[in-house]
């Protein structure tokens, strides 16, 4: 008879099971390093029962994390804000408090608590990600991108890009282009 000792990573095991079961239900999710699960999109009660049912055999259960959903809501709202040109002129703070029905300060506190980042920083990060995506797609000038993402000027965009990523848009593009050439 052979005897072994098992080394395992609980989170990885969990991620594998979740991926398998939830994908079967057509539900997309993300699992962070702290074992916190976020379900993308609207989670109906019925869906929730399905998920709990599917995970029960593995001894995995969902524990309610109240503020989490609010953070998700904020993130979702921010994504909406960045991708829909109609609402972008509004102030982020006003937009969020109206959208989620909480005061901005409480939203901000909750967000920082959960994500270790301020909403402002998150918005900037997301904006720069959007800018990157547009830049990589090509066909859109920096001026246009700046306008689309509600920057006052290209310089403003460039400044924020540099501040956020440590690189200028130009060097970013150059690096991506060179990567494509080398691979």
């Amino acid at each position, binding site marked *: 008879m052979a005897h072994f000792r098992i080394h395992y990573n609980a989170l990885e095991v969990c991620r594998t099971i979740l991926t398998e079961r939830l994908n079967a239900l057509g539900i997309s999710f993300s699992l962070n390093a702290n074992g916190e699960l976020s379900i993308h999109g609207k989670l109906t009660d019925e869906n929730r029962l399905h998920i709990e049912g599917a995970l029960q055999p593995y001894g995995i259960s969902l524990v309610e994390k109240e503020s989490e959903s609010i953070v998700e809501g904020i993130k979702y709202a921010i994504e909406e804000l960045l991708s829909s040109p109609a609402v972008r002129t509004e102030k982020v703070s006003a937009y969020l408090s109206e959208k989620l029905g909480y005061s901005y300060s409480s939203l901000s506190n909750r967000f920082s608590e959960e994500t270790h980042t301020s909403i402002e920083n998150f918005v900037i990060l997301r904006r720069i990600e959007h800018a990157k995506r547009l830049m990589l797609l090509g066909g859109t000038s920096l001026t246009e991108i700046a306008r689309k993402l509600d920057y006052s000027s*290209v*310089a403003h965009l*460039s*400044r924020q890009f*540099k*501040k956020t990523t440590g690189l*200028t848009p*130009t060097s970013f593009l150059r690096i991506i282009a060179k990567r494509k050439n080398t691979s």
Partner: protein
Amino acid sequence: MGLLDNLGKKKTGVLPYVLLLVLAIVVLFFISNASFQQNRALRQSTELVTHTQEIINEINMLFGNYSGSQSAGIKYLVSRDSRYLSDIVGFNDKSKFSFKRLKTLTADNPEQQKSLDRITVLSERFFTELKSLNPEITEKIEDSSALSDKVNAIETQHDSLETIQARMVAAERNLLKERRAAYQTDMTFTPINILYLALFALGILMFAFSKINSDRKKIAVTRSFLQNILENTDNMVNYLVPLRNDQGKIIDFEVTYVNGQVEKLTGRTTTNTIGKKLSEAYPFALGRGLFELLVEVIEMGKPKMREINYDINGNEKWFLSTFSPMENGITATSRDITADKIAADSLKELNKKLELQNLELERTGSFLQNLLGSIQYVISYFEAVRDPVGTIVDFKITYTNDKITELTGHTAEEIMGKLISEEYPFLFENGDFENFRKVVATGEPMEVEQEYDLSKGHFYFCNEILKLGDGVTIVSQDISLRKAAEKDLDEANERLALQNTILNDAESVAGLGSYSYNIAADTMTCSDNCYRLLGMVQEENELSFALLTSMIHADDRDLFKRNIDLALLGKKNVRNVYRIKTLEGDLKDIVMEGHFFDKNGESFMVGILRDITKEVSNERILQKHIRELERTNAELESFNRVVSHDLQEPLRKIQMFISRFSNADKGNLSERGLTYLEKIDASANRMQILIRNLLSYAKLTDELESLHSIDLNLIFDKVLEDLSEKIEETKAKITIPELPAIYGTEFQLEQLFNNLLSNALKYKKHDEAPKITITSEILKFHEIDESLNLPPSQYIVVSVADEGVGFDPDQSENIFRLFQRLHKKNAYEGTGLGLAICKKIVENHDGHIMARSEPGKGTQILVYFPFRK
């Protein structure tokens, strides 16, 4: 002597002799044939005679039998002896045999045959008669009459036979007689005929022989005559036989005959020539088209004539050669026409000279005519006027021609009879008077050129003064025009000399020498300075192309020759550098330039030689310095990198460890210790900045990438981005207009303007927010201060102006030096590298950086970049 044998044989002369000989042979044949025929006829005649004789004998034999039978019959009748009867039978048998023989013998004679037929009948009857004689019959014949009848009958029978016999014998006798006569004839005539014919043939042979013999003699004479001619002729005679290869192609000729002249003219002995190949016998004849010509003669079978010149033992000889095909070879007869040629040439030359002389004469003639027509002569006769002692004191003008009017305005009539002291007083001043006196005194004619100011103008005259009686004839020729022309010429010469001097000076100053090389004639002419350049004295050495070639350094000579050959071939312009060892022994670097042109059908290569020894040596020194510099730079760079990088590591750790001092640790330190720690920290921080700047300064050299067009607006965007914190912190107001693009390297330009803006932000007045203004303009070259010494170009000038603390304008150069700090260490942080880096970057871009400043008012940094479209 085959040739001579051939020469003696004339084909046309031989034919009759051959015919004659053939005739003789035919005759001899005829003779032998005739003899044979004659002999045969003789023999036949003999045979015929014998034959006839035989026939006659046989006839007699036959009739003898008959006669015997008759007599036997009669005897029987008479004797009644029956023995006689058997005799008859015997005679009958014998007669029959004879008859048969006779029949065959006379088979060719129908006459005799007819007789024989008759005999057959008669003999039968005769023998029937005889056979009837038997004892019974005899018994009956008792009576004599019957007997006599019987005997008569037999007699009759026999007589008839005898008649025939007589006829036959007569016929044969006739025949015999005829044949005898014919035989007689044959016997007499045949030998005579043969004799005659033989004599005739002999005659022919004799004739032919004597003819041939005389011809042979003639040939011998002709041959010796020819030999004599050939040996004594001036012509070279050769007989050449072609030598063919396997394909029948002529590859050479063999000399089979030469005459004595050959050795005389060419020095080639018969042993050298006869039996030798043409190419061996006459090596000097090779390559003159002779062989081809000979082949043509052979192949066409037609004679050719050609003038050919040969180089025989160094003498040029001309031969007029005739090449005639003869038999299977060629007779080559060559006449030495060298003398003719020379004569012809000198004649030609003479003709040419004559022509030239004629031309010259013509020219001179027409010139004279022109001269006479255009040049004016004044002819005068001055008669001496003497004082009482006999001294000539004046001259009287006794004659002058009309030409004088054109000079003085006076007519000849007006002048004649006057004294020269009245008419031409100036003759006493210019020495003419003395000359006249001298000529009168000595009688020696004089020719004097004199200048006169006459009423019609200024004239030059050439006066020929001749003594005539007690006076002088003066022929004055107006040479004013000539004088003027001479003056012009002098002036032109002077100008030319001046120009030459200037050119020489120019060449000398520029270190140039010019040359002209006549390619075909291989002659070279050079300027004075060219000689000087090559270390030659013009009077001592003459520059030739060969001399120039020999002066080229041995290592360069092949190249020189190759280049020149190529240039001459293609008539291409050349420019090459060679080392030359001058005649003075100096080694010089020379540029040789040349181009080609044709003049009067001759090709020239003209160009210059330029001494670039100094440039080349400077270049070498420069190259050496550059190499040294490169090495030093490389060393310096690696030193920089090593120092900066490797220094940074321990420094970073020092800083790290200092920062690891926790508050608790610091609490344990004394106040002094704490101060020391802070000082260590500050020093380490300063050192870090210093190293970082040094590193970036050092990197500027190896980061020189290819320049490309860079939008300055984007550069400033980036710089503003990088400095945004500081800008926000100081609340600086920065004005940036729309800027042009320049050629440059992005990183460096970023660093440049980053440093400049940083400085502007740093050296602000303590109480004021910095105000920085960027401007740019494009300047034409003439708009730029000359003292900047910039290479000609348009420039983009970017100005960064602040209203900060400024500095002493005297320092405006120093601030760009390494580690130059104008302010106290503590007043402003910095390493003294920023502007040095800026200067280096600008220089990398072929630009210029300068500063203008006034303490308390601000600083303006101007950066010049070459403007490229």
